[in-house]
């Protein structure tokens, strides 16, 4: 099986609020996927569903298992870090390591300790005495010492300062990612993880609005800084988004051949952030 996650029309309601409105999702093995969406778009619900922490309707397979049936078996193959600071506050750092070592068959204590020795986290302190950044470092150290197929990160760097954020992703890419493991990261700060990703997912209002490999992005999407006298032609080609840029108009096109666009003006590939805005606006208007 080449996809580690396969989901079809996932639905979830919280009372009258629809959190997931038919999410279709495939995540290839070995990819680093970014699940990107504004607050309240359904990111956390989707990720919780993937690891069996919330019930959803629809078809769902993660690492060959239905997470709704046997969460504890799935968690041998999947690790999860939620928004910072979810480690229990009353535990000591050494307690956390003892606990994970005892309950997780794939935890390598030496690896975790080696990683921790590069940080300045004292083993005797309680979690509540650590800073947010340290708690995240500790959690990452634990997760990196577990041999799993899939790592799910839900806004892992929320509330951290820039130094910790950069270090977090550097570690993840250099020390953890080996090409076989799969990582899913959710965030609403696109710029931060753009360079990391191999697979891009946009989610808005409980729906996936974009599902593309980063490598395909430049073929699929083109941004054109349209010359003022070509505006009518540009409009005719059906742009998905138009914005003002330095007194000119910048058009974003989806799946329009490059030779058709070249006469309109200056071409380039939109950044993920621009594309994100474009797709969201399109979704809202449409």
């Amino acid at each position, binding site marked *: 099986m080449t996809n580690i996650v396969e989901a079809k029309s996932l639905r979830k309601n919280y009372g009258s609020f629809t959190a997931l409105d038919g999410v279709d999702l495939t995540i290839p093995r070995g990819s680093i996927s970014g699940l990107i969406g504004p607050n309240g778009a359904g990111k956390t619900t989707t990720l*919780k569903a993937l*690891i069996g*922490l*919330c*019930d959803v309707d629809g078809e769902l397979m993660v690492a060959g298992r239905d997470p709704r049936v*046997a*969460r*504890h*078996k*799935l*968690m*041998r193959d999947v*690790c*999860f*870090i*939620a928004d910072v*600071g*979810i*480690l*229990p*506050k*009353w*535990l000591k750092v050494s*307690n956390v390591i*003892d*606990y*994970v070592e*005892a*309950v*997780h*068959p794939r935890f390598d204590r030496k690896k975790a300790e080696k990683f921790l020795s590069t940080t300045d986290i004292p083993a005797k302190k309680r979690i509540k005495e650590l800073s947010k950044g340290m708690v995240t470092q500790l*959690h990452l150290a634990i997760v990196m010492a577990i041999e799993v197929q899939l790592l799910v990160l839900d806004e892992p760097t929320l509330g951290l300062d820039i130094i910790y954020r950069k270090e977090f992703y550097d570690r993840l890419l250099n020390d953890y990612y080996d090409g076989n493991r799969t990582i899913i990261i959710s965030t609403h700060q696109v710029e931060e993880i753009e360079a990391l990703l191999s697979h891009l997912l946009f989610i808005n209002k409980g729906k996936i609005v974009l599902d593309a490999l980063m490598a395909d992005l430049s073929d699929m999407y083109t941004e054109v800084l349209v010359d003022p006298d070509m505006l009518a032609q540009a409009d005719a080609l059906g742009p998905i988004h138009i914005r003002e840029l330095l007194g000119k108009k910048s058009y974003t096109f989806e799946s329009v051949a490059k030779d058709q666009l070249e006469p309109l003006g200056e071409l380039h590939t939109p950044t993920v952030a621009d594309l994100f805005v474009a797709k969201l606006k399109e979704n809202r208007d449409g």
Partner: protein
Amino acid sequence: MDKFALLQFYALAKREVLEHRNLFVGAPAMVALLILVASIWVALQLEQAELAAALEYLAILFDGLSPFDMAPFFMLLAIPFFATLYVCSVIYLINTLYQDRKEMSVLFWQSMPVSNLQTVLSKVFTIVVVAPIFYVLIIFALYLIAMIWLTLLGISNDINLVGIGWMFLAALTSLLFIYISAFVTSLWLLPSMGWLLLFSAFAKKTPLLWAAGVFILVGFLEDFVFGTQYLANWVESRAANPNQYFIFDFQSVFEKLFNYDMLFGLLVGSILLAGAVYMRRFID
């Protein structure tokens, strides 16, 4: 059960003790300290002659008697500890499946390969088996201090100390009965424990209010629909009078563990526990 599963279960129980060390160690230690301070204060109030007389009275009272026969005397002394254990257990059970959801650390616990069944069982195990061990150890420490103190008093007042030795033996024997009583009683209270755990896993806030409220509601419903008061009666015997299952001699252990009422209680307790296990799926 393989070795890894045992180690896993040990880690789960250890986690409970670490998290609730105030309830399992702090509270009984506080009670022991209060008792110690109170008895020292009383001793200081007495005149030297009265104190010596009291000591000798105790020494003679226990001298040469079987510790098994005299142990129940110390069961009575342990009543403050039983009461503390009871209150702490209620606090523990109503919070244990709720607190981690409230502070969101549940996301960490649930990200480990530990099933909901293991989690709930580890909590029941903690209350039934582990918590009484800590209580007994602390009572033991209290008795040890008392024994040393009485011995010193005895020597300074020139009293024959053999009886104090017998008293200490009886006190130690009572620890065994205290442990067995706590164990058997908590099995007897399993339905009440299941009830608390169910609402601890269910409530989005104020689990105690839910547990009490639904109990009253369901009780009225039963009275209204069936015209019976089984639930109310049930709770009266299962929660209000826990001491009825105290053990004072070994002969009664078997008959108190293996009788219809006890086994039926374990059955309906299990229904509520199963509810709590499934309820654990709803973490938000």
